[in-house]
């Protein structure tokens, strides 16, 4: 597996969110107050207090009935704008997709299934998201242009309700599109995969552990050996030495076993040979179960790896030692008091290496239906779509349609994993800590113009001190902007499903929901204030 699902630290995330939202709110309040004091002098404070009071009144007198009515209107309006014409493109794609992607159906491989699943999920996301961005960005500006918003604002409907009605209405039409597309997509996948290969359409439910290493002398180490791979995701343990990869799996009990009482351990270790050796024989590994409380150990027989495809080892609950004939119970004898199971993996072949990363060994709980994982991934797209609606509607309260579209699209692009990694590197600013070489904005311009090597120290004088100081300020501003840009890496759940895994709640769905909730309050409030101060007569 080439990805490593990590649970989101929920508490830390909430605290961080509160700090960012709190700081931003204070900045907005202070700036508003100061501008009111400057423009209205003594009356500024009174106006400010009245505005706050009116906002609170609007907030506490929200009417679900009015929001629902506005949502329905938004839905009907989007429908009349032929939003559902997207189904034509969708139908065309799916009618002919099988022509281009159909491999040898008699000999279906997991890679082909992977291509089908990622194609469907990607198509759904790529068709719905742009549609929703355009619809939501043009909604309010268009109403202002044709002056239909005037009739709404003269009714008892509050501006907060208008924003909420828009968000819910566009989300509803998006949900309808998504529901139909994911339903058709699911049927398409199931029909494309021949009956003989249906068992490849599964969702494995993994329990991941924590991984630590012992070096060849048996001392604890952060990592194993690097055998020259550029990607340092996996590290290697040397065969026939004391080097071990140790996994500690939490929450192990009888429920982890299958109905026959067996433990399913799935691995995908890689091989690295320092000499060719016996090429007909794959490298061998074994597992050692060790209870840290009692010191009991049990070592399995040596097993061959199956590189890049993986092996599922079925471990019987009743273990009989081959050396002394003693019988162990996997759960009673090896699960520690804190509910963890410790498994040590060693490489058997001398001077050969086995490569592994944390997700390369997991306990496989009973599989769930493919539909479960697929629709969870579709739910990921749904949450992202609502977030997009939220950002686009907020943007459209103070921008014109095309500009709001561009703003939302840019936020989506910047929200990707690579863009965030790029910004992180910019902010670190020092190559020895994983950042970019060559300093900040002005420093890098200076270095380019003067052909100065990025590793050369800058001259030590006042001018350069000011320059690096200004760069620091700009980087600080970038940091602030970065906090506002959503992290969309969690929303891509297709990789789980296409690789045959269930979508884990803690490391994907939960962060997505939290991100949505986190953006909801600030976006709606920003939209509300923007709509209140917007001059509706100005088209």
């Amino acid at each position: 597996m080439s990805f490593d699902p990590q649970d989101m630290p929920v508490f830390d995330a909430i605290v961080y969110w509160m700090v960012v939202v709190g700081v931003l709110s204070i900045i907005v309040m202070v700036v508003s107050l100061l501008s009111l004091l400057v423009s209205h002098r003594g009356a500024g404070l009174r106006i400010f207090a009245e505005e706050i009071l009116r906002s609170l009144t609007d907030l506490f007198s929200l009417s679900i009935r009015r929001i629902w009515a506005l949502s329905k209107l938004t839905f009907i309006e989007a429908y009349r704008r032929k939003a559902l014409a997207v189904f034509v493109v969708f139908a065309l794609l799916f009618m002919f997709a099988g022509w281009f992607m159909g491999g040898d159906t008699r000999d279906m491989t997991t890679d082909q299934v992977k291509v089908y699943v990622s194609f469907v999920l990607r198509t759904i996301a790529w068709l719905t998201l742009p549609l929703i961005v355009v619809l939501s960005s043009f909604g309010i500006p268009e109403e202002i242009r044709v002056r239909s918003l005037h009739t709404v604002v003269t009714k008892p409907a509050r501006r907060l309700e208008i924003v909420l009605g828009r968000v819910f209405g566009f989300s509803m039409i998006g949900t309808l599109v998504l529901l139909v597309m994911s339903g058709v997509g699911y049927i398409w996948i199931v029909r494309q995969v021949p009956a003989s290969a249906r068992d490849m359409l599964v969702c494995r439910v993994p329990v991941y552990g924590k991984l630590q290493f012992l070096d060849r002398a048996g001392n604890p180490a952060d990592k194993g050996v690097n055998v020259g791979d550029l990607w340092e995701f996996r590290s290697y343990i040397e065969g026939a030495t004391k080097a071990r990869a140790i996994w500690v799996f939490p929450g192990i009990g009888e429920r982890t076993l299958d109905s026959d009482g067996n433990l399913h351990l799935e691995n995908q270790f890689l091989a690295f040979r320092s000499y060719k050796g016996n090429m007909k024989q794959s490298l061998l590994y074994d597992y050692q179960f060790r209870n840290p409380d009692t010191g009991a150990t049990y070592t399995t027989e040596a097993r061959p790896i199956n590189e890049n495809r993986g092996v599922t080892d079925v471990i019987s609950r009743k273990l009989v030692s081959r050396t002394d004939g003693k019988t162990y119970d996997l759960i009673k004898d090896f699960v520690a008091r804190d509910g963890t199971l410790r498994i040590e993996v060693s490489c058997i072949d001398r001077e050969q290496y086995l490569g592994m990363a944390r997700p390369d060994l997991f306990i496989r709980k009973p599989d769930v239906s493919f539909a479960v994982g697929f629709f969870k991934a579709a739910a990921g797209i749904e949450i992202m779509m609502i977030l997009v609606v939220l950002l686009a509607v907020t943007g459209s309260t103070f921008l014109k349609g095309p500009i709001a579209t561009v703003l939302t699209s840019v936020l989506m692009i910047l929200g990707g994993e690579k863009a965030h990694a790029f910004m992180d590197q910019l902010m670190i600013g020092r190559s020895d800590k994983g950042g970019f070489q060559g300093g900040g904005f002005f420093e890098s311009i200076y270095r380019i113009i003067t052909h100065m090597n990025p590793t050369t120290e800058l001259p030590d004088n006042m001018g350069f001190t000011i320059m690096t100081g200004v760069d620091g300020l700009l980087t600080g501003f970038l940091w602030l902007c970065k906090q506002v840009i959503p992290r969309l890496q969690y929303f891509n759940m297709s990789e789980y499903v296409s690789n045959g895994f269930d979508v884990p709640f803690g490391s994907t769905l939960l962060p997505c929901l939290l991100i949505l909730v986190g953006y909801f309050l600030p976006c709606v409030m920003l939209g509300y204030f923007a709509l209140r101060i917007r001059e509706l007569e100005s088209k």
Partner: protein
Amino acid sequence: MMNSLTSQQRKLAYLIGILLLLIPIIMLGLPSDGTKAGSRGKLAQLRTEYELGESDLGDVDPSSAAMNLVLLGMRGVAVNLLYSEFDMQKDMKRWAEMEATTDSIVRLQPHFEKVWEMNGWNLAYNTSAEWDAVPDRYFYVKKGGKFLMRGVRQNRKSTHLQYHVANVYQKKIGIADEAKFYREYFLHDPDPKFKGGVDPEFNPDEQDNYLVAKREFEKACNIEDQYRRPQHILDRTLFRSMPARCQFDYASSLQKDGKFGEVTREAWQEALTDWTRKYGQQEFSIPIGPLGTDVRFPIRLEMSAEDIRKEIASPDDAVRVAKMVESYRKMVNYYYWRTRANCESESKTAEAHRNLYEANQFYKKQELEKARDAAYAGMKGFEEILRTPEFSDLQAEESLVEECMLGMMVWEDIHRVSGEKVPADYPLKWLAAQHQGNHGMIANVQRSFKRLFLD
């Protein structure tokens, strides 16, 4: 001035401007009428002149052409993005995805030969080596080979690509560490879908890999001749020797596999014919004039001093040509291969090889008496052959000397095991003494000796 015109006049002016600009565009872009002379548009004429039309270059891939058209001028940008994806997928060992990206890249650049070459190499050499199981490695060697073959179909005038196809058959399958397995898989594919037979796409005629390589190298030579597309990989004398070299490899591999009958002798006989009658008679144009001039003369590696004298009037030039012929012969090891083929196509050489091979087999089975007799017969056979002045060059031929030394090692070991003293004098003793200082060779022989117990 435009401002003084009415709207209608302005529109008319724009229309005339458009029409005027259209004329050169139409003139340039007129389609070909199918004949070279009568091609009407300038671009069509140039395309015909330099044979740059899609169908001139190779098979037309409609999806590739459509993709390039849709991307307008942005295919370079798209390819760059694809290459960065490709690199990431390669580093992360996501082979299936990397293959899909490779496919997209070649669809965007179907006539960029280096792209085919690099990606074919990547699949056959780099990706295959990343897998542990030999059948998996072979699968990617095949992928690389098939990929290069696809490249040739789309660039049928590419001598380079055709050379690289042949290289996969000859070097990757024949010389890799896993060659023993690869050569076996070439005839009995490990993929269950071929039910123990060949992969028809990779080995349609069910032949030995060296014979397929020979055929593919011959195709490369034909492309060079037919389309006048010189290659820049090897010196031309070396490049043109490849088909014959494959025949040598084939004959040697038959011996290694323990086949010493008429088939092997005929293979050597054919190798001799290929080397002396076909390759030896090919003409290579070499410069013979003083530096800075371009006076050239066609030489043949099989040409005698008398031939040179007959063909060149000036004695100075004749001497210069004779020297050049000699230096080219040395470069391609011409004499050695001629001698070797001559020698190996004799039945007594085949018999000596068979004896040494059988000695190893008996030794493995611990049938020591039979092994000793066979080894001695082989040593005696080679003593006679290598003492013949005609074949004395072979005394320095490493693989043959290693074979003889292994035979001697088996023979001596049997004496030791049986508690007998090794005789003071025995056939080929002088050969061992001659190579005593060649530690690399001795290490090889010792390794092969150990392997007799392991295999």
